[in-house]
């Protein structure tokens, strides 16, 4: 993918989730500001990468005794941002392998960590696909810039609410 921006988070013996999140936040802010995404799309892209990278660091390295190598690439195409994150950790398809999100009546404290984050990702992006190739997990997503609501639609909605 020809990237507007790309970021490689090199593997370390002791993964520091906090510093990875800081790096992601700073890079996304930079890309989004340069591309004029607007604050809500910057928030969304940041959240998606935060949740997926956290999941990879916490779960992806278990069998290899180190945190996986993570590569993030982001490109703008019209009103859309294409987000790709790949890692060389153990095979994990977030679309089918994630635990179900905790139900609202469940005790959330005891719910598995991954479920909630991946549930957020799936529901915040416009498309999401997964493939495993050359020993890497590769998740590709698209997120659209939010369009301002046309004036006519707004007034119609207001009328209905009254």
């Amino acid at each position, binding site marked *: 993918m020809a990237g507007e921006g790309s970021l490689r988070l090199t593997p370390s013996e002791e993964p520091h989730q906090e510093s990875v999140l800081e790096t992601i*936040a700073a890079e996304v802010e930079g890309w989004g500001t340069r591309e004029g995404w607007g604050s809500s799309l910057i928030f969304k892209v940041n959240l998606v990468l935060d949740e997926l990278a956290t999941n990879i660091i916490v779960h992806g390295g278990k069998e290899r005794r180190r945190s996986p190598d993570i590569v993030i690439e982001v490109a703008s195409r019209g009103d859309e941002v294409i987000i790709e994150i790949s890692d060389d950790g153990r095979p994990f398809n977030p679309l089918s392998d994630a635990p179900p999100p905790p139900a609202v009546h469940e005790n959330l404290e005891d719910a598995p960590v991954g479920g909630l984050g991946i549930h957020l990702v799936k529901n915040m992006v416009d498309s999401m696909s997964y493939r495993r190739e050359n020993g890497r997990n590769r998740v590709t997503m698209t997120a659209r810039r939010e369009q301002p609501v046309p004036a006519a639609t707004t007034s119609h909605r207001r009328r209905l609410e009254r």
Partner: protein
Amino acid sequence: MELTIERDGGTVIARPNGRLEGLQGASKFQKALEKSIGPDDHALILDMEALTYISSAGLRAVAIMINRTKAADMGFVLCSLSKSVNDVFTTSGFNRLVQVVDTLEDARWTVAA
């Protein structure tokens, strides 16, 4: 992230400022909230006006506080969420687990009721 605590009678008003993220950050936040609550307090208001970011780690901290306040028979209300933070609450279904209101004034009315 910084957390400012204000006390108004038995109501604790907590104001996180900045980004609530990371497993450590969320756990620190949750522990600071718990410490701020005294035995005579009857309500906790989380004023999110200055919160610029929240992830699932932050939601879990909120989930723990939902359980703690429930166990202590305390009111718990969130207010002044930005649009993006509010999206995270609605997408996760958390808006059905805890009361979310628009303004701090609404929150004060809610816990006083």
